[in-house]
């Protein structure tokens, strides 16, 4: 399991702790308090499904979200590398033609006086 997935799983389980706790309290806690545990293997089977399915759903949703994010990041990087090969975009993400330099040549309206180079 990658570190990203592990941390995402931990985050998601912490975030879903309250709904999960309330769900377990009502679907398992209340029946046990009412004596449903004495029903034996039938209740055990039900309890197994009820207790296993929500964490499985969380893990599945989290894995899908992490995979989708990784795919999005990968496609973004691929697109960026294609664009940089077309336009000469440096790795910083700012196109070289738009990068600020110490001075830039500009056209001055009106009468020309002085140097055509001004500092920006």
């Amino acid at each position, binding site marked *: 399991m990658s570190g990203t997935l592990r941390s995402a799983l931990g985050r998601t389980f912490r975030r*879903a702790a*309250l*709904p999960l706790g*309330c*769900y377990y*309290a009502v679907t398992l806690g*209340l029946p046990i308090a009412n004596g449903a545990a004495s029903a034996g293997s039938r209740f055990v089977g039900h309890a197994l*499904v009820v207790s296993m399915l929500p964490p499985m759903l969380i893990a599945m949703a989290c894995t899908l979200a992490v995979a989708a994010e990784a795919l999005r990041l990968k496609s973004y990087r691929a697109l960026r590398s294609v664009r940089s090969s077309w336009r000469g975009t440096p790795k910083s993400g700012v196109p070289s033609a738009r990068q600020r330099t110490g001075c830039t040549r500009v056209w001055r309206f009106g009468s020309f006086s002085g140097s055509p180079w001004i500092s920006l």
Partner: protein
Amino acid sequence: VKAFIDSRRLAPLTRPGVLIAVALIAWGLKRHYADAGTDALRWILQPTATLVGVVSGATFTVAPGEGYVSHERMFLIEKSCAGVNFMIAAFAMVVFALLARVRSGASALSVLGVALAAGYGAAVLVNTVRITAAMWLADHPVRVAALAPADVHRIEGIAVYFVGLVLLYELVRRVERVAPGTEVRA
């Protein structure tokens, strides 16, 4: 009355009071659900049946003592479909999510009221989704070797109820973030 008005001083006592109220309301709902017949659960079954009818296109009529029946779809919404357990879970969860807002008697009452309304609304909506999905599954049975149709129905119920709880929690968190009087987080 003065103590109620100046109840900010009572904040340490209010939150345990809210928790006791939650336990009493949940116990009362559970007791009512256990003792009541289908007709006494009309307050939750009728809006559910109406919404399921709107979503699925089926017509549900009252069958006294049994619930709401759709003759053309051969489907009965009975007591076990009421979703009162979900309502209890949703109510308790919303109260816990909003517990930090309880600073006075008035805010405690408003949190309990909001949680009851949210629990009821969520129960009707989520139950509608669950029953509509169950009707669809009844028309298009899923063949899974290890699972009987009853197991598929149970798994569908667990998934819909749990996802419904998580979505309600996310909604409450979002509202809590943007609601006035609370710290807005980025």
